[in-house]
């Protein structure tokens, strides 16, 4: 079965979507990512969509679901590399992707992910003082 590869980098998982995904492939990615987060105890997920020429409501919803599911599994998600034409189209389509952290490229995404993860760590540390 066709699958999108998930790379492990320290405590982060890295996904580069390089194919025009059909709906089932998108759902498989969602399942794979959640199980990999638990398996590797990952704290962050970086999804690179820079080669995606189109994001429709299905893929947009999938990205939002991944971010929500990851959060429940104590991992942060950053989506990077959205093309300007995709951003313009998404907003006109009516999908504002609220609740999804984004960054311009992988490098900035990694910085954002590290910041987000250390933020949740500080929260946990504060909580443990009681």
């Amino acid at each position, binding site marked *: 079965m066709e699958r999108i590869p998930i790379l492990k980098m320290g405590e982060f998982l890295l996904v580069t979507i390089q194919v025009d995904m059909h709906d089932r492939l998108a759902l498989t990615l969602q399942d794979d990512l959640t199980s990999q987060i638990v398996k590797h105890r990952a704290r962050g997920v970086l999804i690179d969509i820079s080669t995606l020429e189109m994001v*429709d*409501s299905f893929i*947009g919803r999938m990205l939002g679901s991944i971010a929500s599911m990851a959060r429940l599994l104590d991992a942060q998600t950053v989506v990077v590399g959205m093309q300007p034409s995709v951003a313009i*189209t998404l907003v006109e389509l009516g*999908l504002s992707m609220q609740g999804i952290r984004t960054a311009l490229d992988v490098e900035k995404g990694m910085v954002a992910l590290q910041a987000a993860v250390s933020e949740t760590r500080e929260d946990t540390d504060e909580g443990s003082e009681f």
Partner: protein
Amino acid sequence: MKVLNSEAMELRSSEDIVLVRQAVRKKAVTLGFGLVDQTKIVTASSELARNTIDYGGGGTVQLEVVENDRRSGLRLVFEDHGPGIADVNMALTDGYTTGSGMGLGLSGSKRLSHEFEIFSKPGQGTRVSILRWK
């Protein structure tokens, strides 16, 4: 308005949605659409192709290169013989869905197109036509 060429595609599975997106992209590029215009019509085609499959039980799409005396454009006509839509105005409302989606397919595709037409009769099916001019 004159139809310069026309191509029909089957819509049965989620792989067909990908094939339609690719065919629409190719036609839009050939017509000289800019990148944003390409992305808009490709995205609209993806939404409507999925509607045809998920709600119409499958159907067809007709890809037509059209022109009038001033400009050329791309028209996509999606047709199914599914259950049809009882209340078209309701179906065109953002966020309204009878399925599990986000309810942006019809309303969003309308916003992404220059011309939009929908005909639907309960029990007979649905035809949605969108046109984007160059």
